[in-house]
């Protein structure tokens, strides 16, 4: 009897809780502004994607809008006069040099109509479409279009559109396209821009820019030959075999701002669960190339490490899936991020400790946070996703694996140098050093002086800035701040000011001033320990007041060295620094210097001379472009340069002897 009651109780609890559980499962994480319901067919013979999207868009601003703006990213690949390809060409990147007629890609709108919903009535807007070039007025660029509406969409109002489109998959370019039977399909559908209080934010596709979009729900049905294995953003709801040799794969994901997918008959599929500390599970899917089978465990471990540390530092990963794609060789689709799906990349002989495939896996997963969850505008603030993610990947890699080894390929074999570990301090500084005075960090992605400058500022400088901030603030406070910044801006579009606001809360306005210099100001950070001067004081001589004579003699008997330490600011960036001075008797003094003046002298009367001194001895400011001028010693050792010369000498002697095999 008692057992029957228990059973009834269990059933009752299940029946009551099921709707709640189901509701919880479907619960979205944020307002769904741009929702896409797509039904598309891939024709692999012609590399054509055809289909339709039902876009349900809500005006989430305080302003009405009488037009809608869209991206058609693939039109960047329809001819070599697009802004993307012209910018690439100006940098000497010949991306389409070998393109044949069938290699170009495009996305064409076949029809665009308002569907009857709410206060809107059905109307065909296909003829209202106008290509726009807001960034450079390039008449050949068709990566953005706008469409005039019969009446404005008011704040909070929703409009529903039906868009029929046809997209030609290009030969691999900009991490999308088809290579033999491998498809990586990204930025492929007509995608609405972001309407902000300032107006439409919908930039053209540039050679050095990524993307920006509103969050929403993507419900996508992809039909293609059954032999293909498909991976995509979100959860696979179903796979329906159609009886005509094709299968329709249905994917669904809410609270994301993009949808990418991949298909290949060759993928090896591996699935594993990752359990978070909260008990929640995330399903990891690894789509692996058969020739990278030996890297399976390393890929999966890298994703798990990324999930573990990112959840700890930036908030628990909220989605139930993540798909890691090992891209096909030559597909040019490696190292790219999309919501809940990313591509990594590896060489089949990469040894453990060489940072591949782990580094790129962690980096691209990390974009799931800084791009995916924290939806910054990659066109306008590239450092806010690339810099944060570069910082993230280094932190996760070093925490999980320790410093990587220097590796170089000889005759195709990666050779590890176990004596050479790359310290975390080395990450990014070389790139930054070369461009420190070239550009300011906060620029629109396509407005940097060069690709090198874009990369160094968006990736390296921002990474160095964050790592310096971590050292300046202390780990505990820093991670608390990062978690707050991250989780506070999940599913939002933060700008630099939003980040600075969080920094101010945790580290004060002085730290914000430092960051403002680094973000908005040109110039480099370079402090130098300019000189150590030790003067032996003569005994007190001359006329003293009676009490001062005794004092001077006492002082002289105790401290007969006059020590002068000169520190200088050689760079334009001003930060507070510590100065460490070590004396011959072993005592050490650490001073604080505001670092604002061009120079500062620390003067002491001490019993022994100073033997060493260093500005920023703990290497807090990793952005310092000249590290070796930060310290001085009065007793320099010759063995450093002798050691280096001896090693180089060996290389030269051996090289002379080996190349002697050529003819003597």
């Amino acid at each position, binding site marked *: 009897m008692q057992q029957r009651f228990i059973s009834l109780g269990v059933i009752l609890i299940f029946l009551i809780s099921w709707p709640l559980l189901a509701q919880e499962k479907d619960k979205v994480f944020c307002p769904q502004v741009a929702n896409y319901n797509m039904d598309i067919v891939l024709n692999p013979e012609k590399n054509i994607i055809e289909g339709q999207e039902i876009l349900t868009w809500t005006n989430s601003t305080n302003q009405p809008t009488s037009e809608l703006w869209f991206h058609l990213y693939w039109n960047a690949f329809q001819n070599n006069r697009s802004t993307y390809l012209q910018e690439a060409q100006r940098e000497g990147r010949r991306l389409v040099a070998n393109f044949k007629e069938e290699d170009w890609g495009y996305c064409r709108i076949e029809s665009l109509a308002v569907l009857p919903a709410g206060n809107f009535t059905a109307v065909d807007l296909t003829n209202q479409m106008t290509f726009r070039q807001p960034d450079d007025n390039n008449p050949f660029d068709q990566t953005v279009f706008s469409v005039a509406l019969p009446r404005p969409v008011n704040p909070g109002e929703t409009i529903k559109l039906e868009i029929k489109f046809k997209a030609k998959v290009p030969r691999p370019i900009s991490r999308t396209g088809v290579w033999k039977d491998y498809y990586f399909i990204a930025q492929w559908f007509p995608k609405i821009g972001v309407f902000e209080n300032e107006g439409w934010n919908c930039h053209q596709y540039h050679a050095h820019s990524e993307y920006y979009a509103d969050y929403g729900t993507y419900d996508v049905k992809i039909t293609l030959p059954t032999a293909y294995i498909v991976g995509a953003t979100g959860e696979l709801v179903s796979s329906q075999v159609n009886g005509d040799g094709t299968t329709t794969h249905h994917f669904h994901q809410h609270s994301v701002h993009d949808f990418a997918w991949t298909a290949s008959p060759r993928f090896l599929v591996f699935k594993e669960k990752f359990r978070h500390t909260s008990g929640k599970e995330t399903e990891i899917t690894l789509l692996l190339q058969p020739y990278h089978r030996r890297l399976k465990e390393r890929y999966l471990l890298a994703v798990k490490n990324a999930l573990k540390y990112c959840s700890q530092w930036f908030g628990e990963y909220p989605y139930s899936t993540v798909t890691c794609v090992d891209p096909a060789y030559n597909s040019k689709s490696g190292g790219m991020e999309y919501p809940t799906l990313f591509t990594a990349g590896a060489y089949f002989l990469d040894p453990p400790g060489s940072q591949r495939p782990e580094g790129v896996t962690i980096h691209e997963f990390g974009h799931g946070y800084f791009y995916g969850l924290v939806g910054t505008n990659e066109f306008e603030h590239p450092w806010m996703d690339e810099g944060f993610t570069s910082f993230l990947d280094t932190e996760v890699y070093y925490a999980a694996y320790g410093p990587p080894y220097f590796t170089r390929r000889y005759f195709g074999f990666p050779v590890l140098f176990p004596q050479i570990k790359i310290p975390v301090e080395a990450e990014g500084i070389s790139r930054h050093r070369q461009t420190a005075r070239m550009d300011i960090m906060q620029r629109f992605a396509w407005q940097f002086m060069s690709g090198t400058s874009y990369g160094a500022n968006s990736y390296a400088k921002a990474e160095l800035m964050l790592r310096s901030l971590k050292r300046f603030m202390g780990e505990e406070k820093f991670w608390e701040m990062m978690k707050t910044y991250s989780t506070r801006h999940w599913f939002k579009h933060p700008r630099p000011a939003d980040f600075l606001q969080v920094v101010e809360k945790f580290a004060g306005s002085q730290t914000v001033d430092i960051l403002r210099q680094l973000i908005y100001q040109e110039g480099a950070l370079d402090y130098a320990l300019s000189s150590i001067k030790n003067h032996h004081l003569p005994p007190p001589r001359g006329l003293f007041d009676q009490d001062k004579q005794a004092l001077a003699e006492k002082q002289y008997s105790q401290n007969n060295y006059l020590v002068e330490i000169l520190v200088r600011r050689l760079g334009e960036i001003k930060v507070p620094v510590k100065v460490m001075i070590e004396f011959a008797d072993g005592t050490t003094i650490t001073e604080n210097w505001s670092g604002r003046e061009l120079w500062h002298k620390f003067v002491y009367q001490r019993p022994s001379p100073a033997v060493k001194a260093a500005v920023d001895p703990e290497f807090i400011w990793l952005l310092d472009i000249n590290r070796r001028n930060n310290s001085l010693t009065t007793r320099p050792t010759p063995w450093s340069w002798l050691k280096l010369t001896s090693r180089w000498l*060996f290389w030269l002697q051996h090289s002379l002897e080996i190349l002697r095999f050529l003819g003597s």
Partner: protein
Amino acid sequence: MKIKIIREYIEGILTTGKFFQLVVIIFVVNLALALILAVPLANSFRNHLGSSLTSEKIVENFDYVWWQEYRDEAQGLAKTVQVTTLTPRGALLDNLESLVFFNQQASSLPPVILLAMIIYGLVQTFLTGGLLATYHQERPPLKKGFFFQQSGVFFARLLGLMAISWVFFLVIYQGIGRLFHWFERYLGRTALSERPAFYVGLVTSALLLFLIFFLQMLFDYARIHTVVFQEKNILKATWRAWKVVGAKLGQALGLYYLILASLVIFTLIMTLFREALPEKTALMIIVAWLLQQILILGTIWFRCWLYASQIKLYQRWTETSLPSAAEK
């Protein structure tokens, strides 16, 4: 056949041991020329480090952060200062790669290094005449200046042989090498995986290396013929030597690659030993330097050994013995 090769293999060791001063002379030339270039580089290191505390870190360990800074500012000779050129295994592998892909890598070398290589090649060509004459005639090399006198006698002819060999090397590098490289790149561009290009690259590299050594071996015998028979016509010397080698190709290759294999084993052992040495104190830096010099001396000794063994083999083939055939 095997036993015969072993006999020459051992005789070569004995001969080089008997005239070890010649190995030392070549080593001194090598060291002296390298030191001439090392002095400005040492100054560059010293100036770059100044009185910085970075020096202390470098004595303790390889300072990657410092190296990045140095590399970012490097000009001319300093550009050759890489992580690989500062580590024993890297130096060896870099040089092996340079040998196989000389045509691709030469352009990236600073002119002063290329000049040093040319000078070294010329000096070694000069010394080779004396070396071969000494090994052939087994006369005390330094007595009455025999070694240098013979070096002078054969210099022009050996230089001519070097020039001819370069025509062939050019064919290997610019013809066969480029073709291999094109094929590897073609596969790299079109294959579905990186493996085909990797395997083809590996095989073509091995083939190139084999061809380079094979050509060197052929010209070794041309040089030997020139000295043993005091042949004035280098084309005739080359033709006759190759005819002899062609008839006994198995033995020639066997001996050549046996000694090369010995060199590889020696280099590997020395490198592992050198890398295990903790180079953290002044004393250990000196010990490491000495060990490196032993490795270089050993490499030079193997080159002399090759000549000595090949000369013995050639003497046997042509049934020439002391004194030289021409003197007979």
